[in-house]
């Protein structure tokens, strides 16, 4: 949190955010939106090839748990190991894979957010000074974006489901932040905390923090739409895309807002405040008391 706060106050942070947003928009336009010229131009052979690539990626990375036909698997007692992916839709795939939750490495109480595996890592660094290095990185990134797009395409082909939201729907600037605040506090804060710092659920599960900038507006939207893991679903007919955009606007504005009162102490409320009061407040006062009352001989003139 603090690292992030410091980061976004740097002069280049604004540009970085813009660049990231542009990249995200580019990525979405490049692959997923059927309305784009590219998609229209793509001939059937290309589409089939993409689907084949998606299937291949699925078989390599996902099928071991989700089953060869994405129907889900169960253990010997009939307890589900991994859910069926038929009908979960592109939004779910995009969320799970782009946040690194899938493929899962060691199943615990909950899949943690982590760096996506290289084949799907669309967030790699490309701003190298050396042209060849940059080119290689850009190529790798494009590859990852294509892979992700193909995988989404493949899963969608199995049974439809919610699509990835268009960039315009997740633009924080377009949201009604006052409404977003109200909706966030009523429907999200009980798990994710006032300011999106996250919180505990039962059984070692947790609501992850939303306060880091790598939680992108698209991912927030997708999470509401698909309800990953323990999170409930807020589909587009319950919280309309406009409501979701309002929530995104509130969250992004809140996390980018500096703390007027000094260090935010993690923005988690009275627990950290009490700790600081005791450790820093009482600590400093005790040091002062010890200094004031410390016995030290005065330097006296030799008689």
């Amino acid at each position, binding site marked *: 949190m603090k690292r992030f706060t410091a980061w976004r106050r740097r002069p280049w942070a604004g540009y970085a955010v813009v660049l990231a947003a542009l990249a995200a928009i580019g990525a979405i336009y490049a692959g997923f939106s059927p309305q784009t010229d590219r998609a229209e131009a793509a001939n059937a052979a290309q589409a089939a090839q993409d689907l084949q690539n998606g299937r291949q990626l699925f078989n390599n990375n996902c099928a071991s748990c989700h089953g060869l036909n994405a129907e889900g698997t169960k253990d010997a007692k009939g307890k589900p190991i991994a859910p069926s992916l038929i009908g979960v839709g592109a939004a779910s795939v995009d969320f799970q894979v782009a946040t690194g939750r899938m493929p899962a490495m060691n199943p615990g109480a909950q899949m943690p957010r982590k760096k996506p595996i290289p084949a799907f890592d669309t967030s790699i660094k490309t701003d190298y000074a050396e042209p060849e290095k940059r080119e290689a990185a850009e190529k790798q990134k494009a590859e990852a974006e294509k892979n992700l797009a193909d995988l989404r395409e493949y899963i969608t082909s199995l049974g439809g489901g919610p699509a990835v939201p268009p960039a315009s729907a997740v633009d924080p600037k377009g949201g009604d932040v006052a*409404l977003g605040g*109200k*909706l966030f506090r*009523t*429907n999200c804060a*009980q*798990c994710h905390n006032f300011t999106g710092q996250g*919180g505990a*659920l*039962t*059984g070692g*599960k947790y609501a992850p923090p939303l306060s880091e900038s790598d939680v992108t507006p698209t991912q927030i939207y997708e999470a509401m739409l698909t*309800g990953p*893991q*323990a*999170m*409930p*679903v*807020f*589909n587009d*007919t*319950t*919280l*309309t895309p406009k*409501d979701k955009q309002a929530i995104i606007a509130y969250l992004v504005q809140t996390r980018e*807002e*500096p*703390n*007027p*009162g*000094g260090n935010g102490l993690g923005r988690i409320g009275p627990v950290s405040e009490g700790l600081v009061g005791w450790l820093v407040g009482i600590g400093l006062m005790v040091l*002062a008391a010890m*200094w*004031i009352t*410390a*016995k*030290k*001989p*005065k*330097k*006296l*003139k*030799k*008689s």
Partner: protein
Amino acid sequence: MSDETNETAGPARPHGEGGKPERVIGTPAGGQPLLGGGAEDEYPAPAGAGEELDEKSAKNAERAVAAFFLLSFVASVVFIAYFIGWSGRNGGMHGVLRARESNFWLGGMMALSFLAMAVGVTIWVRRLMTSRPIVQERHEFVATEEVRAGFAQDFMEGAADSGITKRPLLRRTLLLAAAPLGLAPLVLLRDLGPLPEKRLRSTFWADAVEKAHKQGKKGVRLVVDGTNRPLKVSDFSTPGAMITVLPEGIEHDLPETEVLTQTAKAVTILINVPADQFKPAKGRENWHVNGIVAYSKICTHVGCPAALYEQTTHHILCPCHQSTFDATDAAKVVFGPAARPLPQLPLAVEDGYLVATSDYHEPIGPSFWERG
């Protein structure tokens, strides 16, 4: 010092008691320090030291103290200068960024000013004040026997003179007069609030349903808290969905001062439990719509909104004290301090919209004595 040894037992007197007060001023430290290099030693003066401060050291200390006082002065001046000269620019302080700047400068300078002065005074005391530690007697505050006896006598004389001991009628009627006087102010507090009556037993759902019935409808629509959008069954058809709802009209049919109070009772959590996992309770078989259920959002423990729904376990958790309810099983308590399930709101479908067909069948929220 009262020195009555107790009848039964008690710790012995401390050692070395009754010794003469020790001469203090200028007492040289006794013996060679063995532990802690003299830290134990109280206010020692180096051997052969005189009564006056070493002038060179004192001068240094004086300079240090003065420097801190000057620093404090400068900080206060900056505080005032910032406030007058800079904080009010462009129409005054408004908004987060300017509040941050103002807090930083005003607070920082205030802290610097106080702390510098504190440090200065501390150095002054420690290095420059030549007062010596002194000894004072602790005086006994217990009155002597004669004084006590004298007072007792005066007291009884006064009582006798006043006649209060001789005239019990006076005494009793005075007490009688005082008793209701003490109670009178309590009566005044009666108008602090209305009596509970039946207030806690119904919510705005009852009013709203009644209004709907009068219009020949089956029930009142559920609207999303925050957007006031009425919900159709098809709108809420995704399993695992959750949303906070209110009765339609709560915002407009009520006087403004009543809205929050009624919301605090009517607020409801709507959950779509996968139909195959839903176990409707006896007598409530038709209270849900394909696994869409509505429970009161107000926890039955002490009234926080129990809003934390996990779609994997179907648990509803209250974030305040972690009472946990099972959404598939009539919101039965599975963990935590709450004793009763969350009350359930009977749902139905009308024109494709989700409606509530009656109020909660029991009082919502925390338990109370008359609840039964």
